[in-house]
């Protein structure tokens, strides 16, 4: 069974995300304040008359927003991430999530439905069989984690730009948001969504995507860091309202491109 959290049951994506953002704001803020100024940070700032943690946090956040803009400007929609021979695939490919391997979600294939909402013409929910019936492609690319490590893997599935045109998505919208069965959520910019290597991933290394890599479906983008690649996706929505993300709301850079 898919564990549906209450906020996933709602239909209006933007309102749901707004509520999620409101809820997350306070804990995120606390965590940032606890974390951002260490002994080193304080000693660094001790030259100032007033150590105003709040304004330091705001300044760093606004630089991060500026870095989003710079990355959007640097992003070349035709620039492909390097691809590798299958012999270079990292085995075993590392598991990574905001929880441990013992908490990997088990999603039931038969009852699985992919919701597609927001600025799209066709809002019907997709079964796994319907997704598998779409034209498939695969790629061997490097996954780069925000922690610094990287690993090469082989992902297969549906080119996301094909899927978006199939559902009649308004590609002039700013964002595509994702909500996942493991309560993860994130969002990406439209140019990256339309990048030729952005893949609605259904398989890993020729096999159906295993639960540890996000069964039944994840979004794979070799042009973005790992935390921008959501697993166990249940809902996709196209919107002009900034949807944020699980890590992004805590301070990771939103664009997260490589």
């Amino acid at each position, binding site marked *: 069974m898919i564990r549906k959290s209450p906020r996933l049951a709602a239909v209006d994506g933007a309102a749901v995300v707004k509520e999620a953002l409101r809820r997350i704001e306070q804990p995120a803020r606390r965590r940032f304040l606890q974390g951002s100024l260490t002994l080193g940070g304080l000693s*660094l700032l001790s030259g100032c008359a007033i150590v105003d943690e709040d304004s330091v946090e705001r300044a*760093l956040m606004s630089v991060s927003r500026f870095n989003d803009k710079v990355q959007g400007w640097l992003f070349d929609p035709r620039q492909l991430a390097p691809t590798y021979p299958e012999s270079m695939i990292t085995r075993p490919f590392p598991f990574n999530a905001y929880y441990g391997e013992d908490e990997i979600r088990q999603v039931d294939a038969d009852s699985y439905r992919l919701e597609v909402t927001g600025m799209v013409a066709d809002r019907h929910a997709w079964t796994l069989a319907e997704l598998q019936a779409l034209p498939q492609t695969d790629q061997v690319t490097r996954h780069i984690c925000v922690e610094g490590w990287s690993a090469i893997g082989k992902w297969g599935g549906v080119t996301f730009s094909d899927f978006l045109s199939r559902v009649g998505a308004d590609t002039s919208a700013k964002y595509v948001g994702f909500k996942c069965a493991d309560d993860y959520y994130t969002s990406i910019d439209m140019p990256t969504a339309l990048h030729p290597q952005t893949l609605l991933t259904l398989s890993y290394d020729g096999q159906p995507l295993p639960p540890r890599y996000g069964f039944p479906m994840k979004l794979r983008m070799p042009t973005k860091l790992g935390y921008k690649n959501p697993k166990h996706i249940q809902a996709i929505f196209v919107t002009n309202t900034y949807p944020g993300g699980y890590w992004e709301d805590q301070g990771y850079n939103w664009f997260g491109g490589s």
Partner: protein
Amino acid sequence: MTNDTQAIHPLWLRATHWLNALAVLILAMSGWRIFNASPFFDFRFAKEITLGGWLGGAIQWHFAAMWLLAANGLVYLLCNGGSGRLWVRFFPLSPRAIFADLRAAFRGHLSHADPRQYNAAQRAAYLFVTVDAVLLVLSGLVLWKSVQFPLLRELLGGYETARRVHFFAMTALIAFVVVHLAMVALVPRTLLTMIRGR
């Protein structure tokens, strides 16, 4: 202006020196925290000397101070090259002169009588750290945007090699800072010169 032309270190040099020192301090401490998230050597930097608290905080510091380092470094290079100071202060420079001055320095015979003149060891060290900083910026660009800078990425041997290049360039920079601070401690007058120009 008169003050500036008489100064041993012009105002732009002192300003860029101290802004660079601030940028390097922030970048090194936050960079160590980022290294700790996934170390490729069998050690971690002590939490007390890192900046940012958690990985996300460290990255925010790192990706803010990188602009200061790059912009300030660009101003330094333009002023240094444009004013002709680079050629006057750093050249001529020969391996033989560097070797001779290093040997004199280790014997305690190297004099700092005229602070307007850099000895060959100083010239080599300052030029080295300038090139090292450029390497840090370039390898950092590959780590930040490896897909968007394919030529730079391949020149540095790919993403994973660029990580090592970035790390060793940092190590070289820290080694320079240690020697630099030791020299300032031995000749404290140079600290005053870097603050007030004379």
